[in-house]
């Protein structure tokens, strides 16, 4: 028997194994979810339904288990999950077959049915036709622990933020582990602000002050490879918001 066993919910949630840091608790860590600095919680949605795997960021079917009910009912990797037991997991005003980041919030209403079959409606990307398939939904929790079926070892950390690699450039919501410059060499002309994108390659004081919108394929902007290989030369020091060497 372990020397100390937390028994009630508060003790279980408060528990931190000896030696683990404070950030073991989600409330004391960054706990972001797109993907995530400590865990990518979205990965529990991948294996929520028996027979298929979903993409954690969209609701696309990315794998179908051979011999499964899902395969028998004709699901393909061109299918997207639209609703579960009539609960929509797609908001209004989205592009066809794409979902917002928070698509899985809609699952909150049905998660307690884990361990039983639910009716999943899928939409086909190519022609927007729908089909309903009864799938077994795996239970999310056992006690207060995620079940191994939805979170096998390694699942929650298989896809994390890469603050110092891709996400340095990639973070589309400008949420990044530390601030970095964005709009630099700014001057006010009339009632507009003009300046450069900090990713603007090889700019000089005479480079026109036009902020280039982020696009990794724009040759005028630093790309991933430039960063990985040569960030010390590509990224310039800023003093008072201005390039300096």
């Amino acid at each position, binding site marked *: 028997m372990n020397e100390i066993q937390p*028994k009630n919910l508060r003790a279980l949630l408060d528990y931190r194994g000896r030696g683990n840091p404070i950030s073991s608790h989600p409330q004391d860590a960054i706990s972001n979810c797109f993907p995530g600095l400590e865990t990518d919680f979205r990965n529990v949605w991948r294996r929520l339904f028996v027979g298929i795997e979903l993409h954690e960021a969209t609701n696309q079917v990315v794998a179908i288990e051979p011999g499964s009910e899902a395969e028998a009912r004709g699901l393909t990797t061109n299918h997207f999950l639209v609703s579960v037991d009539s609960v929509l997991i797609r908001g209004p005003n989205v592009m066809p077959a794409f979902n917002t980041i928070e698509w899985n919030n809609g699952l909150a209403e049905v998660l307690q049915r884990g361990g039983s079959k639910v009716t999943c409606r899928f939409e086909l990307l190519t022609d927007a036709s729908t089909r309903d398939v009864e799938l077994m939904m795996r239970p999310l929790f056992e006690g207060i622990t995620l079940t191994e079926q939805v979170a096998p070892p390694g699942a929650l950390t298989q896809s994390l933020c890469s603050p110092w690699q891709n996400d340095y450039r990639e973070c589309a919501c400008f949420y990044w582990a530390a601030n970095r410059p964005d709009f630099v060499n700014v001057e006010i002309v009339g009632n507009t602000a003009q300046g450069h994108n900090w990713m603007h390659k090889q700019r000089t004081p005479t480079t026109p002050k036009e902020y280039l919108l982020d696009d990794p394929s724009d040759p005028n902007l630093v790309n991933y490879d430039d960063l990985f290989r040569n960030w010390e030369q590509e990224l310039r020091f800023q003093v008072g918001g201005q390039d300096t060497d």
Partner: protein
Amino acid sequence: MLIQLNNIVPVADVRGCEKASRLFALSRPHTPQAHLFETEYGCHLLMANGSRVYTISAEIAAQVQRLQNTPEDLVPYLDALGLESAQYITEEALPPLPVRTLSLAIAQKCNLGCTYCYAQEGQFGGAPKNMPLEVAQAAVALLLRDTEPGDRVQLAFLGGEPLINRDALRAATAFAVEAAQTKGVSLGFSITTNGTLLTPEDGAFFERHGFAVTISLDGIGATHDSLRPYKNGRGSYEQILKNVRPLLALQRRMQVSARVTVTPSNLCLRETLDALIALGFHSVGFSPMLTSPTGRGEMRQEDLHVMLEQMVTCGEEFERQVVADRRYPFQNMLNAMQEMHRGSHRPYPCGAGAGYFGVSAEGGLFACHRFVGDDVGVMGNVSDGADAERQSRWLAERHVHRQEPCRSCWARYLCGGGCHHEVLRRGRPACDYIRGWLHYCLQAYIRLAERKPAFFGVPVITAPSQTDRPSLS
């Protein structure tokens, strides 16, 4: 000739109250940080901060016991075990709180003469009066004033005896239903009544609106009659039962519960609990009478000793019934088990003066239904709401960190400091009882968590199917 039974206070016999005596000894406060307790499943520890419950080895228990009178040694020891935690309850001032529950003294008059009534036979020491409908409507407006669509608020009818002012009660309810619907707010209703004026039509009305109905019953037959007679001395039990039976049969949206006020004259709790449950009450709860305006009916130390013995007897029956998958709605245990499982922790005993207020017939706002008409608990009025300065002063003064002897008691965050009304009038005579009861509840929680985890809503999953082995892609 009617014998005035309520003048004879029985001598409480604490002989034979072995369980209670043992609980008093085991639950004595040593250090405010933690409390040791044992069950057949081993040694356990309650960490007061956050109301966290642990099972611990005998070695750790022995060490805690050795250090429990020297917090300067105990605290580092517990920290080294990994049991430290950020402070769950601080004295940070609460932000301004919206009203969430209002209790209307819709009738400040009563037809009974209960010996211990906090409202002094319903009138709060003043002239008997009914609440005008306009005041009730203003209270509803206050209740809904700071709500958003989707919020949930509660409206309670008390008194005196609320059914004396039935017309206003019905009209206020109808008004509230419409007003809440307009705002998209969910509104729950409740009533506490002596039951003597209940009609079947009241029952239909309460059922339609899903009222939580609480009937005040102090025991069976003569036991009840000796404490809750009509003003002319006649017993009320038979009439109440006759009135309540149809409601007990009708309850679906409505819930009809019984509340027993425990005095030295009605300590046969197990008998009372079994009988009231058998009658079909949705739940039955007990509350000790600690401060009575006349002094009559107040529990003394020896009475609390007997009460603890009786409560534990009831609790043990509750445990047996739960393990046998049978419903036994002993409200005190239902609440305690849920709170222990969650680790509820509170700096106050209730929401009085925070999100909960009592409204007097004239439209005054008070800290709760017991403080109606009492300057000690005045908060404002229904038109203007609670005075912000008064409210923050109340919340600062009533915080459990400022109470004695609460500050040094392991049970402070489970108890919250005790009913403000009782404490301000009589102090804290029931601390030993409360600690003894909580010690028993902690033990019962461990036992039930072992024997019936499903009772706590913990999903119990049998071994995963051999064929369900999702692989990492």
